[in-house]
């Protein structure tokens, strides 16, 4: 029987047991002395005397037992024995086993057990030592936590099998979301007599004490406080937290290649368009750079090239820029992958050694041009842009212009079977928009649409209108004038869409006026291109799922602009349009646990084959659109293929901070513990559940025993008193 006490200090009361014993011993030393003549009548046999002495000794032990039991009851005895499980009225001890699913848990060092394998081994040992009444659920903690065993199970074989079938860790770290998920699940287990969250983690600092994690813990603490108060009122069990640190024996310095996320010049590209894919290679924790064999580039899984890495790099722990160009000749969706080819000893973490991006190749890009003129003409603000975006053979087919005064709100988000949603909306010197138009536009951008704003003389006069919009990258403050005109400072362009213009000047492009703007502090907007006088030319801002690009110059000939007649104009506009069409994160980029949502329209496929980083291909019945798949916590490529041949690809990119293998310090742990209002056990020397056991408070049992002993004591005392009176 395993027994432990919650209030150990109370056990010091056991020292009081010495008092009766001492009194007894002292009493034995004390006696009356009597000079007696009739000693011949004292019984020779001392059996009666011995029996009485034995009775008194037994009585003393009974009293000692009562005292001891009272002290033990006050010390809150907790039993972890299986045979006491029935005393709990069949109630269970529900335990959520949380495995830190961050990809860094997969660190593999030759001749060493990885943290993940260590976690599995420790968990299996704990299941081996589990006691009847224990129920387990298994959760993988990562962005978008995943229940690997959702229903609490008391079938230890099943739990053991599920632990052994855990997929390798491929998630982005998010321990707070895992804890929140486990907590919420345990809150629903109202019948449990004990609740526990067990976390198997390598205690990396980024998972636990990064600023977002601490903020999330603060948020959790508020909810947990409220839940604990409610549980206290209802008398329900409250969860405790046990953190089992795994992989503690790994070396502190580990070689690891890290690839930056892929930057694609155009996530939506036109057929035949050359697309530039860029990345950078990091080598963490290396005293000197050890070059990998190379970085391989794959297009839809087919090797498209191999980037060689120079053997000598001066910068210690620096990064090496990587760039690859590819021209997509067919429309469709392509998965572009960069994969580091390196010796395993030099790259302990493989999950961050590959990066993927989705490039969507289209024949035409639907662009909605909203013109600031009431009547469209060859002098309208959108005229040249429409010409630039027009296909050679089918002019104006992929770009439609409409006056702002006649713009219908549903033009942004059209509905209907044949409706085509614009990939990009251009506001060409639009002075203002009606409220309904504005709401529709804001919703469009928020849902991932691209917005290009070209400011001209009309828009510049409506500063108030623009400055009120939440998606605006900057505040309008005035109009700049230059007698000799200003030019784009193309060599300082800092945007992949403008990459091709960085090599030379744009001598024929000149503006006499431009809109002066001011960036809002702490906004996410960034100047990606400037004029020769240093004033911003292009300002980019992500807005929810969409992206906004602000040009401080018009796209017509007003303000003496020569941009529309420059040869770079159609190219630049194409680059912008295709860039903006990719939205904030690009097509198919899933982060922060965003689920896959497919609503392509048309007849439901009936069955989808889904390939994920953790599965080779699973068949999923899809009765109707939209179809949603939430288990997107693993980093890598997700591909859904319908029976009719249609395919969709998605990428969950790795969080680069998750590759930081620095472990929490004692102060870090204290920070987290101070935030969470529940018992935190971090004693790894007590790793087994058996040592903790199925928790059953036994104070009432001890008090019942006290009552029993009290009855015995009364009976024995009465017997002794009667015997003395005889």
């Amino acid at each position, binding site marked *: 029987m395993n027994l432990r006490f919650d209030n150990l200090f109370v056990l010091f009361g056991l020292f009081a047991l010495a008092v009766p014993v001492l009194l007894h011993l002292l009493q034995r030393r004390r006696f009356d002395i009597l000079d007696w003549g009739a000693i011949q009548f*004292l019984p020779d046999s001392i059996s009666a005397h011995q029996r009485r002495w034995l009775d008194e000794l037994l009585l003393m032990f009974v009293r000692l037992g009562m005292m001891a039991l009272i002290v033990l009851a006050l010390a809150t005895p907790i039993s972890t024995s299986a045979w006491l499980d029935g005393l709990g009225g069949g109630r269970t001890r529900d335990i959520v086993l949380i495995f830190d699913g961050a990809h860094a848990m997969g660190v593999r060092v030759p001749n060493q057990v990885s943290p993940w394998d260590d976690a599995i081994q420790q968990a299996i040992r704990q299941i081996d030592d589990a006691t009847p009444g224990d129920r387990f659920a298994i959760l993988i903690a990562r962005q978008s936590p995943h229940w690997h065993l959702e229903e609490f199970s008391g079938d230890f074989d099943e739990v053991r099998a599920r632990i052994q079938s855990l997929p390798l860790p491929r998630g982005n770290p998010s321990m707070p979301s895992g804890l929140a998920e486990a907590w919420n699940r345990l809150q629903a287990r109202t019948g449990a007599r004990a609740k526990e969250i067990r976390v198997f983690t390598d205690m990396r600092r980024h998972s636990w004490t990064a600023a977002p994690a601490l903020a999330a813990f603060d948020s959790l603490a508020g909810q947990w406080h409220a839940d604990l108060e409610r549980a206290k009122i209802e008398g329900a069990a409250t969860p405790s937290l046990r953190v089992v640190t795994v992989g503690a024996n790994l070396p502190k310095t580990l070689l690891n290649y890290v690839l930056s996320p892929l930057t694609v010049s155009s996530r939506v590209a036109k057929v035949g368009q050359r697309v530039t894919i860029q990345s950078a290679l990091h080598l963490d924790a290396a005293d000197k750079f050890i070059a990998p064999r190379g970085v391989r580039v794959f297009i839809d899984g087919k090797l498209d090239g191999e980037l060689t890495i120079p053997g000598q790099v001066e910068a210690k722990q620096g990064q090496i820029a990587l760039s690859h160009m590819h021209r997509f000749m067919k429309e469709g969706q392509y998965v572009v992958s960069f994969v580091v080819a390196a010796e395993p000893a030099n790259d302990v973490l493989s999950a961050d050694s590959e990066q993927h991006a989705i490039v969507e190749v289209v024949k035409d890009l639907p662009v909605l041009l909203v013109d600031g003129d009431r009547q469209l003409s060859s002098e309208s603000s959108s005229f040249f842009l429409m010409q630039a975006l027009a296909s050679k053979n089918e002019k104006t087919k992929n770009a439609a212009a409409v006056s702002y005064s006649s713009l219908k709100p549903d033009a942004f988000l059209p509905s209907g079977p044949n409706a085509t949603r614009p990939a990009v909306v251009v506001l060409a010197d639009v002075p203002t928009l009606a409220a309904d138009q504005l709401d529709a536009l804001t919703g469009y951008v928020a849902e991932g649409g691209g917005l290009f704003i070209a400011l001209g003389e009309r828009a510049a006069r409506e500063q108030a209108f623009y400055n009120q919009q939440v998606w605006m990258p900057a505040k309008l403050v005035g109009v700049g004038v230059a007698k000799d005109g200003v030019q784009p400072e193309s060599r300082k362009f800092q945007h992949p869409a403008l990459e091709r213009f960085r090599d030379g000047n744009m001598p024929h492009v000149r503006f006499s006026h431009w809109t002066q703007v001011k960036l809002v502090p702490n906004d996410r907007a960034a100047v990606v291109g400037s004029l020769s006088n240093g004033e911003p030319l292009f300002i980019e801002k992500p807005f929810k799922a969409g992206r906004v690009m602000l040009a401080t110059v018009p796209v017509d000939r007003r303000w003496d602009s020569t941009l529309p007649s420059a040869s770079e104009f159609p190219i630049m506009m194409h680059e912008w349009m295709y860039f903006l069409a990719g939205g904030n994160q690009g097509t198919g980029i899933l982060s922060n646990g965003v689920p896959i949502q497919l609503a392509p329209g048309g007849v439901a496929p009936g069955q989808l084959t889904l390939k994920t980083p953790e599965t080779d291909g699973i068949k999923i019945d899809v009765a109707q659109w939209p179809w949603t798949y939430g288990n997107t916590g693993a980093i890598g490529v997700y591909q859904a293929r319908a029976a009719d041949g249609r395919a969709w690809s998605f990428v969950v990119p790795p969080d680069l901070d998750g590759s930081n293998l620095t472990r929490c310090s004692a102060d870090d742990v204290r920070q987290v513990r101070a935030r969470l209002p529940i018992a935190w056990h971090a004693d790894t020397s007590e790793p087994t559940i058996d040592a903790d056991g199925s928790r059953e408070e036994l104070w009432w049992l001890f008090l019942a025993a006290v009552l029993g002993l009290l009855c015995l004591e009364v009976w024995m005392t009465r017997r002794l008193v009667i015997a003395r009176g005889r």
Partner: protein
Amino acid sequence: MPAPKSIFDPTTLARFGRLGLVARNVVEGFLSGAHKSPYKGFSVEFAEHRQYYPGDEIRRIDWRAYGKTDRYYIKEHEEETNLHVHLLVDASGSMAYRGRAVSKFQYAQYLSASLAYLMLHQRDSVGLVVHDHEVRTMLPPRSTSKQLMQILHTLEKAAPGGETNLAPIWDRLAGQIRARGMIVIFSDCFDQVNQLIHALRHLRHRRHEILLFHILAPEEIEFPFTRRTQFRHLEVADQLRLVDPSAVRAGYLRNFETFCQTLRMHASNLQIDYHVMRTDEPVDRALGAYLMKRLARPS
């Protein structure tokens, strides 16, 4: 309101101090309570002439009285009415036990002194034997007025001590006391009961009348102890018994009762007057017992 203590109460008597005063106080108090002394005829001081009846011896006629009164009177001769009494006082160590009342030996002193006073008052010859395992003092019976002083002096000088060995002493005394008389024993009789009975039988065989005052302390009869007690033998220095009284009480009382019953039964068989005297009881009961015994004695 507590009842006033009798003048015969041992603790009250103890306040008088000297035995002579105690004895006198007891006897005179006892005698003054009687309406008519049944012992008048035995007293020399109260001797008188009685009318001659035919059959009386002629030589016992008081001719001087005849000369004065011209009547025949018989003068009772004092020598004929005298009784030889031996007081055997046990002065062994066990007699020193003193409970809530006076010690057993002190009680025996009161009893023996009072009886000696009474006996000598009646012109009986009284002797005294003080003994433990051997005879310490032996005063042969006399009826002189000095005898009382010697008896009282001897009693006052005596102190309990030594081992109990009653039966051999009584046996030996049975051989030494040749003249028939009365033997009054003051003892707790803490000895082997069979040997005691044997000695008493020997005394009876010598045709002595025996009055046995079995002097016991109330604690010895009731055994009221409750706390752990080490009992130290009053006669044997190294004999110690540490017991829980509650554990042995029943056995003690059983043994003690058996002893007393045996002694009482055999005393009855031997026609010995056996009286248990508790040290917390008045001593005058002993005087009554003696006088009853004296009355029953053939003249």
